[in-house]
C-alpha cells in the first residue's frame, strides 16, 4: 500500500467515487441510445481520470483495471454497429471492481479476481480493432452568465422594509419587480424567497445596471408601500460584477458531483486537466472550490444555530434593562442577529447537495432490475441539478429507491402486455425533482397499468383496516391512498393488488418524519405517479408561540392559515364535543388544545384565540389560552419517549433558554379525528 497521506486519499476516494457513480449512468445510456462520440468521450475521460489519480498515488490494481477498461472503451468507440450487451456488462464489472477497490483502499488485501477481470477486459479489447486513439475532446467551458451591457452604470441600491411589514417576502418581490422594470437586476440580497415569513425591518441590497438616474430610482422605490428607507448610489466603476458583496446564492463549498445525468459535460470546477488552455483564461476561470467533510458542515451549522440562540438570549436579557440603555444595545443585537442569520443561511446553502447525487446510481439499479424482470425500461431523470439539504438527500435515498423499484416491478407491465394494450414495449419511468418556493417536489412516474382501486378496497377490508361501507364510500383517488396502509401494502401476493405496495407505509412514514407528504395519482391503463413533497431544509422553523395550561407551545407557521378570536360559549355550543367557527366564509371545526392534551385551560370564559391550521387541504381550528408571539428557531427531533406522543413534532430552545415543544399539525388533525386515513374526510362545510 502506498504511503499516501490521509488527506490525498480522502480526496481521491471522493473524486473517484463520483466519477464511477456517473460512469454507471453513462454506461446505461450506452444501451439506450445509439452511443454518440461525446458520450464515449465522457466515459473514456472518467476512466482515464480515475487511472491517472490512482497512478499518482500508486494504487496499481486500480490502475490495471482502469487501464484495461480504458483500452476496451477506446476500441468500442471505434467499433461500427451495435454494442453487445456482454461488452457493456464487462464495463459494468470493471466499474464495480473499481468501486470495491476504492472502498477497501485502506484494507491490505490482495484480490485474485482483479487479475482475472483485467485479463477478460484485455481479451475483449484485443478482439476489436485498435483505432488510432483520437485526442480526447476538449470540455466545453461552463456557461458564462449573461451580463448586462458593461457600459451601463451600476447602481448600489439599499432598501429597508417597514418594521410592521407582515409579509416581507411578498414586499421584496414587489421591490424586485420595480427594480427589474428600471434596468437589469444583477444581484439582490436577500432574495424574496429568503425573506418569506421573516419579520419586518429587513434590509435589501441590490445591484442594478441601468441608465435611470439615481433620484428617479429612489423616488420609484420610496413610492412603494412599506418601504422605510431607500439609498441609491452609483457603484464604484472599477468594481467587477463578481466582487464586492457576495452574489446570492453563495458558491457551494462542496464541489458538486459531475454535471447532471442528462449528459451535459459541464466540468466540475477546478478539475479541467484535459482542457487545453482557454482563449480568455480570466473570463472562463471556474469558481474556486474546496472540499469539506460533510460532518464539518454539520458542526458549523450547529454552532451557527448556537450563536443564534445566544443572540436571542442576549435580546431577552436586554429587555430587562432601562430603556435608555436597552435601545442602543438592542440595535446592536439586531445587527448581530442579521449577520448570524445570514451565516446560518449560508451554512445551510453550503450543505445543499444536487438531486443527482441520489439518482446517479438509479440507472444501474433499474437496468439490472429490468433485465431480471425481463422488461425493458427507460429511466428519465429531470431536475438532476436541483439542490436539496443534505439531511433531506440522505433521508430520501431509501424511500426513493423503494418507489422506483416498486414502479419497475409492479407498475410497469411486461413488453407483451404493453404491446397488446397498444403501448410501446419499453416502459418509461420518469423521476422529476423541482423546487416550488420553500418546497421540493419529487415525482416518480410510470406509464404502466395504473392502480386498481377496487382491489385496494377489497384488500383494506380483508385486512380489517376498514369496514366494507367505509371502503365503498371512498373515491378512487382516496382508495389509492390505501396503499399506504401497512396491512394493505405488505401482505399477500403483490399481483392481486395490481402490484402496489412493498413497504409503501415505510415510505410514507419516512417522508412524513421529514415534514413532507407523499400522495398518489393514478389512471388505470395509463400509469401511476407518486408525488413526494418535502421542505427545502428540515431544521429551521418559523413558529407561532401559543400558551395553553400555563405552558408554551410552538405551532409551525407554514401550517397556520390565520389566527382569530371567538367566543364559543356565547353561541350555546358548550354541549358539543367539537364545535365550529366561520373562517373566511367557511365552517371550520374547532377543538380545544388543552382538552386534546388533557391539560387544564387557564383562560377565563369569553372570547378566546383560535389558531386555524391547514393540513392536506383540511382546515381546523384549535383554541389556546393566549397567543404569545412569533419565533424563528432551529427544530430538533424529539428523543424517546416524547417521540411517541401524537401531536408533537420536535423541540426547540427559546431565547430565554427554556425548551419549547413544537406541535405537529398533522398529528393534531389525527388527534381531532379529522385526518384518519381510514375515514372519508368530513365535508368541510356544514360540519356543525
Amino acid at each position, binding site marked *: 500500500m502506498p504511503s499516501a497521506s490521509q488527506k490525498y486519499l480522502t480526496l481521491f476516494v471522493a473524486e473517484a467515487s463520483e466519477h464511477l457513480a456517473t460512469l454507471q449512468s453513462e454506461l446505461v445510456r450506452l444501451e439506450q441510445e445509439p452511443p454518440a462520440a461525446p458520450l464515449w468521450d465522457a466515459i473514456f475521460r472518467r476512466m482515464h481520470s480515475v487511472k491517472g489519480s490512482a497512478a499518482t498515488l500508486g494504487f496499481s490494481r486500480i490502475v490495471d483495471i482502469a487501464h484495461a477498461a480504458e483500452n476496451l472503451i477506446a476500441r468500442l468507440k471505434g467499433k461500427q454497429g451495435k454494442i453487445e450487451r456482454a461488452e457493456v456488462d464487462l464495463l459494468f464489472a470493471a466499474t464495480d471492481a473499481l468501486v470495491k477497490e476504492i472502498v477497501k483502499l485502506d484494507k491490505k488485501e490482495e484480490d485474485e479476481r482483479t487479475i482475472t477481470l483485467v485479463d477478460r477486459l484485455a481479451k475483449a479489447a484485443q478482439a476489436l480493432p485498435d483505432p488510432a486513439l483520437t485526442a480526447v475532446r476538449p470540455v466545453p467551458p461552463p456557461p458564462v452568465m449573461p451580463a448586462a451591457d458593461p457600459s451601463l452604470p451600476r447602481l448600489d441600491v439599499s432598501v429597508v422594509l417597514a418594521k410592521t411589514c*407582515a*409579509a416581507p*417576502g*411578498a414586499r421584496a*418581490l*414587489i421591490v424586485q*419587480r420595480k427594480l427589474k422594470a428600471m434596468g437589469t437586476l444583477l444581484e439582490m440580497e436577500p432574495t*424574496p424567497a429568503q425573506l*418569506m*415569513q421573516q419579520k419586518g425591518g429587513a434590509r435589501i441590497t441590490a445591484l442594478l445596471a441601468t441608465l435611470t438616474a439615481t433620484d428617479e430610482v429612489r423616488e420609484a422605490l420610496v*413610492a*412603494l*408601500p*412599506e418601504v422605510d428607507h431607500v439609498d441609491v448610489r452609483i457603484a464604484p466603476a472599477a468594481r467587477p460584477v463578481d466582487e464586492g458583496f457576495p452574489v446570492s446564492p453563495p458558491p457551494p463549498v462542496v464541489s458538486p458531483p459531475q454535471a447532471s445525468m442528462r449528459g451535459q459535460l459541464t466540468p466540475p470546477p477546478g478539475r479541467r486537466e484535459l482542457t487545453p488552455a482557454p482563449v480568455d483564461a480570466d473570463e472562463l476561470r471556474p469558481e474556486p472550490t474546496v472540499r469539506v467533510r460533510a460532518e464539518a458542515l454539520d458542526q458549523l451549522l450547529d454552532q451557527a444555530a448556537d450563536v443564534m440562540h445566544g443572540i436571542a438570549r442576549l435580546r431577552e436579557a436586554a429587555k430587562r434593562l432601562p430603556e435608555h440603555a436597552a435601545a442602543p444595545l438592542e440595535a446592536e443585537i439586531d445587527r448581530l442577529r442579521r449577520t448570524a442569520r445570514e451565516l446560518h443561511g449560508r451554512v445551510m446553502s453550503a450543505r445543499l447537495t444536487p438531486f443527482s447525487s441520489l439518482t446517479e446510481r438509479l440507472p444501474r439499479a433499474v437496468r439490472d432490475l429490468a433485465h431480471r424482470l425481463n422488461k425493458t425500461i427507460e429511466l428519465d431523470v429531470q431536475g438532476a441539478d436541483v439542490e436539496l439539504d443534505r439531511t433531506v438527500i440522505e433521508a430520501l435515498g431509501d424511500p426513493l429507491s423503494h418507489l422506483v423499484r416498486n414502479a419497475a416491478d409492479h407498475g410497469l407491465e411486461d413488453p407483451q402486455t404493453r404491446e397488446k394494450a397498444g403501448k410501446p414495449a419499453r416502459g418509461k419511468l420518469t423521476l422529476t425533482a423541482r423546487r416550488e*418556493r*420553500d418546497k421540493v417536489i419529487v415525482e416518480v412516474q410510470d406509464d404502466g397499468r395504473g392502480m386498481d382501486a377496487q382491489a385496494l378496497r377489497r384488500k383494506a377490508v380483508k385486512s380489517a383496516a376498514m369496514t366494507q361501507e367505509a371502503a365503498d364510500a371512498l373515491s378512487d383517488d382516496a382508495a389509492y391512498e390505501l396503499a399506504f396502509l401497512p396491512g394493505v401494502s405488505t401482505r399477500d401476493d403483490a399481483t392481486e393488488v395490481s402490484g402496489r405496495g412493498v413497504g409503501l407505509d415505510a415510505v410514507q412514514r419516512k417522508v412524513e418524519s421529514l415534514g413532507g407528504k407523499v400522495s398518489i395519482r393514478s389512471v388505470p391503463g395509463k400509469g401511476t405517479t407518486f408525488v413526494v413533497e418535502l421542505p427545502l431544509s428540515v431544521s429551521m422553523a418559523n413558529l407561532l408561540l401559543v400558551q395553553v395550561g400555563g405552558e408554551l407551545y410552538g405551532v409551525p*407557521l*407554514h401550517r*397556520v*392559515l*390565520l*389566527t382569530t378570536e371567538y367566543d364559543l360559549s356565547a353561541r350555546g355550543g358548550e354541549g358539543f364535543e367539537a364545535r365550529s367557527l366561520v373562517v*373566511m*366564509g367557511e365552517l371550520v371545526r374547532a377543538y380545544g388544545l388543552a382538552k386534546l392534551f388533557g391539560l387544564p385551560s387557564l383562560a377565563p370564559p369569553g372570547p378566546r384565540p383560535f389558531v386555524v391550521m391547514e393540513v392536506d387541504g383540511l382546515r381546523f381550528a384549535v383554541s389556546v389560552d393566549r397567543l404569545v408571539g412569533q419565533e424563528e428557531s432551529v427544530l430538533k427531533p424529539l428523543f424517546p419517549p416524547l417521540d411517541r406522543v401524537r401531536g408533537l413534532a420536535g423541540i426547540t430552545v427559546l431565547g430565554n433558554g427554556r425548551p419549547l415543544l413544537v406541535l405537529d399539525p398533522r398529528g393534531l388533525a389525527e388527534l381531532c379525528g379529522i385526518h384518519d386515513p381510514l375515514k372519508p374526510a368530513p365535508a368541510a362545510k356544514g360540519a356543525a
Partner: protein
Amino acid sequence: MPKRVLIVDDALFMRNTLRDIFSSAGFTVAGEADDGVQAVNLFRELKPDLVTMDIVMPYKSGIDATREIVQLDPNAVVVMCSALGQESLVMEAIEAGATDFIVKPFRGEDVLAVVKKVLGE
C-alpha cells in the same frame, strides 16, 4: 372625481369592513363581488380604478381572477387582501400581476396608506 373601487371578498364581514373604510375616505364603492368569476365580470363591466382582491374564494381564486383582470387591462390596479401565513399565495398573486397587497387583520389607515401609494396619490 372620487376613485372607484371594486371590493372582492367571499366574506360579507370583510366586504362591509372594506366598504366602510373606503366610503369614509371619499372613495366610491363601484361594486362588490363574492367570488372570482363575479370579480372578473364586474371588472369588465365597471372598469374600476382599484380592485381589492381576497385570495381564497369559491369558484375562482383571487389569484386566477387577478391574472384574468390584468390580461383584460394591463394597467389594472389590484391589491390583494391576504391573511397571515398566506405569503406564498401573495407572492404567486404578485407574479400573476397583482399591484400590491395588504395583510389581514388590517386597520383602516393601513389599507388607505397602501391604496394611496399604489394610486400615486
